């Protein structure tokens, strides 16, 4: 136990504390009510109890100074568990509560609530994490138990110094920023807009729609992607509560939950969006007589001109100019036939980028995914052999509005007679991406079906496992299997062109069901590339101050209980930026994210953790050390009084100034020096 005086073993106060071990309720300091602590140790079913000897922890806790009662219970977070705390406070006169269970990130609020329900200030509570930090990470029962006891002792010592605190409220602005205009962002934006909230929908491409707009049919129902997506895209454009910003990047995010200041940059499209009606006469008039540059929407399978419409269903239905390709930009000597063709004078060669600041209360991230670059697995031959395609390319081939008008043909225009589809390309592989991309099995089966339908080719699906956990998924699999698609369970070892073949590919694969190695010749090989975080996800997450999990997807606050929240209050996740998802899941999560944002906004305020810092004026010498250290400029120097002063509204509670104050004159609520000293000593005191 920390002694609060400086003088050897003879201090009276010291004895008072030690004496508390005898009867458990001796006063800590003269003149104050005795400290009476209740300690509750949770079994968490068997989650904790299997590895930590909960009874022993409880017994040891009961022997600690100032502990009036120590109990263990199966589930402390359950109603009876919380009720137990409440009753003990009332009946035993407890004035401090310690619960040893899971991470405070999960249940600190719960138990603060139970503490308050018993009539105590909720901050007379301390949580001990003996699940995530002990039972789940240690095998050895003895050392896990010992650790749990240490952590409980630390909390008991710490909680004695807790004070009653009040939470602070800050108002929430009602506007929401949605980042990304794929199906996730569209759904979230529409949900919020329908609820009467103003939404800024920011998309970096020239059109919203995202990956879904590139697909032909969607599994397992085979309904047409465009038919279900396009109406939503137009709705976004038309909705009075949505400000749509395409070709726009978020460059800076400042502020905090309730009042974020977001700086966006509108890149020039060299077209006046308010004038262009998408008649495309400028495109016809372009000095390039036919397309010369790879069309991004068609994944390079068709060519377009420097002035173009992003795709037929683009929203907004407005053309743009690629300055890298347009002759006017490179030489300044173009005949500018497009300018003549445009009777609305919508073409603006001198348009410049524009920066704007938006004020919003919440942010929804819907930045999506990118497909795995098949060149990273060169043994499948992509980029080496022309007839190896990625699935996204084939999505365009089978699409009626695609480069071949929906014909599945090889690069030389021939129809393939045999087609291979390799599953799990880039996925479930320690060398590339370890995760299952979730959608590839189903879209591969869909492509098998469509190709069979369109070409009557022999189709071989090479898979590791077929994963069909979804409504109607397994049934679709059965249907495709019945159609005569070959399903070969085995990983493709290598793909190569025959020495004397005419582009025919040989696929070496172990057929594990037949128990043999097979070499299957195909005309066309489709790689079912997985989903992965966008290349700039790391940069984006820094801008928004959120976290990525180890695999690079944006990290949710809790995998089960807070799947759309992030660790940054007021920032939510929707769709594949959080991990691979199919369309229904994406839509569901986008709705959930919008719902969370609504719940936040409609409450109109948020309660903040009262862990702010304050200067003890009579102790401060006005040394000004703290002033430049505060990242929020929350500390001012009062020249008249020669004191530092903290504006608690601006203070975010990091505690940098507290640690730095050379005379120890700044105090941080919930993290006072003495509380931390006691906690450190508690984990170290040898039982």
């Amino acid at each position: 136990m920390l002694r609060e005086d400086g003088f050897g073993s003879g201090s009276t106060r010291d004895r008072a504390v030690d004496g508390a071990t005898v009867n458990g309720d001796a006063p800590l300091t003269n003149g104050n009510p005795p400290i009476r602590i209740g300690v509750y140790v949770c079994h968490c079913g068997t989650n904790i109890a299997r590895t930590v000897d909960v009874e022993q922890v409880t017994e040891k806790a009961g022997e600690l100074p100032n502990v009036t009662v120590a109990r263990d219970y199966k589930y402390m977070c359950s109603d009876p568990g919380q009720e137990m705390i409440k009753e003990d406070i009332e009946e035993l006169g407890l004035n401090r509560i310690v619960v040893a269970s899971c991470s405070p990130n999960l249940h600190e609020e719960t138990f603060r609530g139970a503490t308050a329900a018993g009539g105590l200030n909720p901050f007379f509570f301390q949580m001990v994490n003996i699940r995530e930090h002990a039972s789940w990470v240690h095998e050895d029962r003895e050392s896990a138990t010992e650790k749990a006891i240490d952590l409980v002792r630390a909390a008991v010592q710490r909680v004695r110094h807790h004070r009653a605190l009040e939470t602070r409220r800050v108002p929430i602005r009602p506007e929401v920023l949605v980042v990304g205009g794929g199906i996730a962002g569209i759904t979230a934006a529409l949900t919020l807009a329908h609820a009467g909230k103003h939404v800024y929908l920011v998309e970096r491409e020239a059109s919203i729609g995202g990956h879904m707009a590139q697909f032909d049919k969607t599994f397992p129902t085979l309904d047409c992607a465009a038919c279900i997506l396009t109406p939503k895209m137009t709705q976004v454009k038309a909705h009075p509560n949505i400000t749509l910003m395409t070709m726009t990047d978020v460059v800076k995010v400042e502020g905090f939950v309730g009042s974020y200041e977001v700086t966006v940059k509108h890149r020039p499209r060299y077209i006046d969006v308010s004038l262009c009606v998408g008649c495309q006469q400028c495109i016809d008039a372009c000095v390039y007589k036919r397309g010369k540059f790879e069309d991004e929407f068609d994944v390079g399978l068709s060519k377009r001109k420097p002035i173009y419409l992003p795709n037929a269903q683009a929203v907004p239905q407005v053309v743009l100019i690629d300055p890298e390709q347009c002759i006017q930009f490179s030489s300044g000597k173009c005949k500018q036939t497009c300018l003549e063709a445009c009777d609305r004078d919508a073409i603006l060669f001198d348009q410049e980028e524009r920066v704007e600041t938006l004020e919003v209360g919440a942010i929804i991230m819907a930045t999506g995914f990118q497909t795995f670059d098949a060149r990273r697995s060169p043994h499948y031959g992509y980029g080496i052999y022309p007839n190896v395609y990625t699935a996204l390319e084939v999505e365009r081939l089978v699409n009626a509005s695609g480069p071949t008008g929906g014909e599945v043909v090889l690069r030389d225009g021939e129809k393939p007679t045999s087609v291979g589809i390799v599953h799990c390309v880039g996925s479930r592989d320690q060398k590339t991406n370890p995760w299952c991309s979730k959608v590839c099995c189903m879209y591969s089966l869909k492509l098998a079906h469509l190709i069979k339908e369109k070409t009557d080719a022999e189709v071989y699906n090479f898979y590791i496992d077929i994963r069909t956990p979804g409504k109607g998924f397994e049934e679709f699999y059965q249907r495709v299997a019945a159609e005569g698609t070959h399903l070969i369970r085995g990983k493709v070892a290598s793909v190569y062109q025959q020495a004397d073949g005419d582009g025919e590919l040989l696929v070496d694969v172990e057929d594990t069901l037949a128990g043999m190695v097979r070499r299957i010749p195909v005309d066309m090989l489709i790689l079912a590339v997985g989903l992965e975080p966008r290349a700039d996800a790391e940069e984006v997450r820094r801008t928004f101050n959120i976290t990525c999990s180890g695999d690079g997807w944006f990290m949710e606050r809790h995998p089960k209980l807070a799947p759309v929240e992030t660790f940054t209050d007021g920032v939510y996740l929707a769709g594949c930026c959080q991990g691979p998802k199919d369309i229904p899941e994406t839509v569901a999560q986008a709705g959930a994210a919008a719902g969370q944002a609504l719940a936040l906004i409609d409450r109109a305020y948020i309660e903040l953790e009262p862990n702010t810092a304050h200067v003890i004026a009579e102790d401060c010498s006005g040394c000004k050390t703290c002033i430049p250290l505060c990242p929020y400029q929350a500390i001012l120097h009062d020249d008249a009084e020669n004191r530092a002063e903290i504006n608690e509204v601006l203070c975010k509670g990091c505690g940098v100034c507290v640690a730095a104050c050379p005379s120890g004159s700044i105090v941080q609520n919930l993290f006072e020096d003495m509380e931390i000293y006691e906690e450190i000593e508690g984990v170290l005191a040898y039982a």
Partner: protein
Amino acid sequence: MREKADNTGPTSHEEFEPRIVALFCNWCTYMAADLAGTSRMGYAPNVRVVRVMCSGRIDPQFIMHAFARGADGVLIGGCHPGDCHYQEGNYKALRRFRLLRRVIESLGIERERLRLEWISASEADRLRRVADEMAADIRALGPLQLSIPAEDFASAEGAGAELTSPRIAWQTAAKEVAIP
């Protein structure tokens, strides 16, 4: 409670299990420790986590207090540079750490006993590696022996057990800790 007394610790390195105090920031490294838990990623049980909101809250006194109270090692965990939840608290932690380490080393404490690591919320695996590594490093070093040899005080009167535990100095004496 028993203080960690000099020369009474475990006699051989094989039996010795180091005590490591881990001062983790709430947003990155504490989260990584939670993630290690939800991922059932085992690591050395020697590490005891004490949570602060930001690595910038960590006062060198906490570290010295930990050593003085029997820690064989202290691990500071914060967000990667540029990732601090509070923008730049981790830089302050780094500045203090670089100076403190010079002092700690001048006082004969091996550098393996004090580490600062940037561990993001997703780097449970890194946390495990650092924890295991530190436990192994310190196990090899043996217990931290701070205290003053007992024979020095054999004749001293009124000294006794106090001598092995660094005291709280003068300074806390005048003020009572307010217990509401």
